[in-house]
């Protein structure tokens, strides 16, 4: 194929203008000449065309007050796995500090998990598959229970990312936690995460333990507390599977679906499925992990 030039952002804007018919005759001819000669540029044209042929969705208005969205600082491209190596060292400490903080009931499954070594996670290429993704509509479309559940999941991810030294991922996750805090309807929670994100952006020391403590205090008596704790536990179990600690996971107490999710038949079915899988020694990690992934998807909304 013909030599492909680098497609700069300027080129992309020019192509956008071409596709909406906004260029003059000379500019159009230049774009068409390149479309004929540059295969890479033509492939981009084809892909973009597919979106142009669909009706444009609406654009949401800006939040009523300015949201200090994270601006990732210049950094090299994020490797999928390279940063996982330093992560291993921090994981036992992470679980020790996070899991014993709060017991959701008479039996504390987290206390058992706190003894488990997650260093095997470093060898996994899949943990970041659940990397951050913003809730649709800037977080306002999630129900408070869904938002609380997702907050639990993401707070664990955030701590893992931060301790692993992946600042870019931590900043992204902190953005999601701000939006989830907003969806939770707890101004103080939202503010706590804004401060956390600002610290991450400024590369200052961040006190995640303090954030967790104040978060739990704020959620005392709030209907989001139970889903939040449940989300954290589910994510910790998923990470255990990824770390190759299935045997240890089999020894933990079974989780119970929070009352906020009663009626969610899919989630209830997946909980039963997970229990059943964990009771069967022959079942491998792939199926258990898939079940946890599906459970998170079913409850995160």
């Amino acid at each position, binding site marked *: 194929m013909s030599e492909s030039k680098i497609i700069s952002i300027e080129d992309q804007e020019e192509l956008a203008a071409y596709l909406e018919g906004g260029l003059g005759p000379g500019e159009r001819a230049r774009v*068409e000449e390149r479309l004929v000669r540059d295969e890479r540029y033509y492939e981009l044209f084809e892909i973009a065309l597919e979106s142009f042929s669909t009706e444009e969705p609406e654009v*949401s208005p800006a939040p009523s007050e300015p949201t200090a969205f994270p601006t990732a600082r210049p950094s090299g491209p994020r490797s999928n796995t390279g940063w996982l190596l330093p992560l291993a060292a921090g994981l036992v400490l992470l679980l020790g500090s996070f899991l014993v903080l709060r017991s959701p009931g008479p039996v504390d499954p987290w206390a058992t998990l706190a003894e488990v070594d997650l260093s095997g996670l470093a060898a996994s290429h899949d943990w970041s598959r659940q990397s951050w993704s913003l809730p649709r509509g800037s977080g306002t479309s999630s129900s408070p229970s869904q938002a609380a559940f997702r907050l639990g999941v993401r707070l664990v991810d955030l701590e893992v990312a931060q301790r692993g030294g992946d600042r870019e991922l931590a900043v*992204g996750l902190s953005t999601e936690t701000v939006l989830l805090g907003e969806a939770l309807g707890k101004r103080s929670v939202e503010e706590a995460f804004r401060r956390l994100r600002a610290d991450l952006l400024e590369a200052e020391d961040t006190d995640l333990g303090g954030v967790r403590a104040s978060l739990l205090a704020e959620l005392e008596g709030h209907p989001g507390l139970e889903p939040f704790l449940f989300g954290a536990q589910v994510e910790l179990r998923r990470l255990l599977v990824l770390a190759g600690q299935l045997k240890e996971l089999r020894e933990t107490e079974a989780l119970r679906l929070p009352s906020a999710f009663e009626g969610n038949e899919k989630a209830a079915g997946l909980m039963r499925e997970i229990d059943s899988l964990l009771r069967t020694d022959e079942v491998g990690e792939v199926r258990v992990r898939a079940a946890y992934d599906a459970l998170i998807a079913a409850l995160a909304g």
Partner: protein
Amino acid sequence: MQTADEGPADLRKADREGVEKVFLEHLSFIEDRLEHQAQRSSFSGEVAEDFSSWAKMRLIEDGYRRLRAFKGRSRFTSFLTVVIANLVHDYRNHIWGRYRPSAAAKRMGAQAVELECLLVRDGLSENEAVAMLLSEGGVPQVHEEELRELASQLSQRQFGRTFVGTEELAELEAPNTDPGSEAQRRSQSLELVLDAALAGISAQDFLILKMIFGSGKSVADAARALRLDQASLYRRRDRSLAKLRRHLTESGFDWSEVREVLNWQVVVDSQLTAEDESEPAVEIGTER
């Protein structure tokens, strides 16, 4: 609600908060576009989520570098659409390499794309590919019979492909393994053909032919994309094709080789008729 027509005029001098605000305002639009592209690319659940996260990271990295380059030459939503298209292109290359799912597999759904990927790109046998998908299926359960049926349908689509045993393979003459030579020769041939072609017809005429015969677009799609009158495009297509063939033949090129160099997989040797697009006089040769 703000409409998609509204948007910033120029972001080059906007401060960080300003760009963040624009990003947030368009977050829903961005996620819709990402979802659309994931569907068009037949990314399954986990891959789609990974793509969405990766693409958003690319948009915010380096202080929203991509968004801050916006000069206002197009609508902001059009600009975003192309930037996201470029990201999906990169992501496809990352996960697919040089392999591209066939149109047939895409039509059959994400499971068929995954299956074809294992069969064609990774070179697994049907048994191996089915076993792998079953072991990764987890929840929801994947049924072996469905996968076998998909594999059967996909194999019927492999037009002209012949499989030989290892003994026969060993007896075949080894191909030229120099990675540069074939690509280089092809690139040079293409350049020559393009130079000659564009001396005979305009770039826009050639683009029309490329879209129709190279990409399999309908005349209606090409007309819409290039903002041309559809009715006249049938005649223009035929005239351009005839002119191109004559010009290239007179320039010493063999038409069948030209088609191969251009990678036009739609056979254009048949006589073209302009009237009925739904029954094109062109013959579809192979799936892309």
